[in-house]
């Protein structure tokens, strides 16, 4: 006997993500889902971002990590609400875990939530969290082939940060290959080339993200 089902396997995740998105929109809070491989510099980017924006905006952070709260401890000095989700081996966050931890934030008193997803380029891009947009972070040390190898993330991300540009001379990273692959996949993606450790290029990123928060959180 054959039974027709015709259903999206990730329906439950999608439905919950839609609920999260509506809730955040009603509270005028934007959520940025930051996705990269391990070690690309998500936490360092957050440190640089918080350093500059914490005085202007009300910010919350959700730290997704397989285990430990090391990343969260690095951000503690900013005195903002931070919630850690340990996935216990899981390679990505999902909308159910996000929905649960939103209860720990006072959404009426926030402009933006940065979600640091688990370091991974494939799995997190399949699971909608209810975010306003995805931000991809890659570093020159990983090589220039990431857009071509992981097209879904670069297709879906609103912006991409190319980090560790100070190391470019020590790698075989080809800016030409990276740019051409990225343009083929998503010619509208907004790109920032930065070195979070040296501070190069951060100003453009900070101006852009501030504009996203002011523009979107007060609609």
């Amino acid at each position: 006997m054959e039974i027709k089902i015709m259903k999206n396997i990730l329906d439950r995740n999608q439905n919950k993500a839609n609920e999260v998105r509506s809730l955040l929109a009603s509270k005028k809070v934007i959520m940025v889902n930051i996705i990269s491989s391990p070690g690309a510099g998500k936490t360092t980017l957050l440190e640089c971002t918080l350093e500059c924006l914490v005085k202007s905006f009300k910010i919350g952070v959700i730290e997704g990590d397989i285990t430990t709260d090391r990343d969260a401890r690095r951000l503690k000095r900013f005195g903002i609400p931070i919630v850690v989700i340990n996935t216990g081996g899981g390679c990505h966050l999902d909308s159910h875990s996000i929905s649960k931890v939103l209860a720990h934030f006072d959404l009426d008193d926030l402009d933006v939530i940065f979600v640091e997803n688990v370091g991974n380029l494939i799995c997190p891009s399949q699971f909608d969290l209810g975010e306003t947009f995805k931000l991809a972070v890659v570093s020159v040390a990983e090589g220039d082939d990431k857009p071509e190898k992981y097209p879904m993330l670069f297709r879906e991300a609103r912006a991409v940060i190319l980090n560790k540009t100070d190391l470019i001379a020590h790698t075989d990273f080809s800016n030409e290959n990276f740019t051409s692959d990225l343009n083929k996949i998503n010619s509208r993606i907004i790109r920032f080339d930065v070195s979070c450790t040296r501070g190069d290029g951060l100003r453009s990123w900070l101006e852009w993200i501030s504009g996203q928060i002011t523009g979107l959180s007060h609609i």
Partner: protein
Amino acid sequence: MHELKIAEELASVVIEAAKKENLSRVTEVNISFGELVQIVPDIFRFAFSETVRDTLAENANVNIEIIQVRMRCIDCGNDFRVTNNEFSCDSCGSADIDITEGRELFVKSIEGE
């Protein structure tokens, strides 16, 4: 390893549907995956078989159809298949395109007795 989480979600959909239809055993699970979701079929089958151990879907065959990426150009209406990750219209060059196929994670049907 997003295969594991997706396999768990599939298992819950399959078992729920089987119980609703009073099946005592599920023999086939027919699903479609789009190329863009980058599922490795062998890893997925293994993850699913582990997830459904000791349930009525134990030993079910998982038949996976892989769907190639297709797009439609918003500007000129061209409907085309994508090769080499070129996400722009192969006729007019526009980057305003909708992905119409290739992102599926879809359960079509189950078979059982």
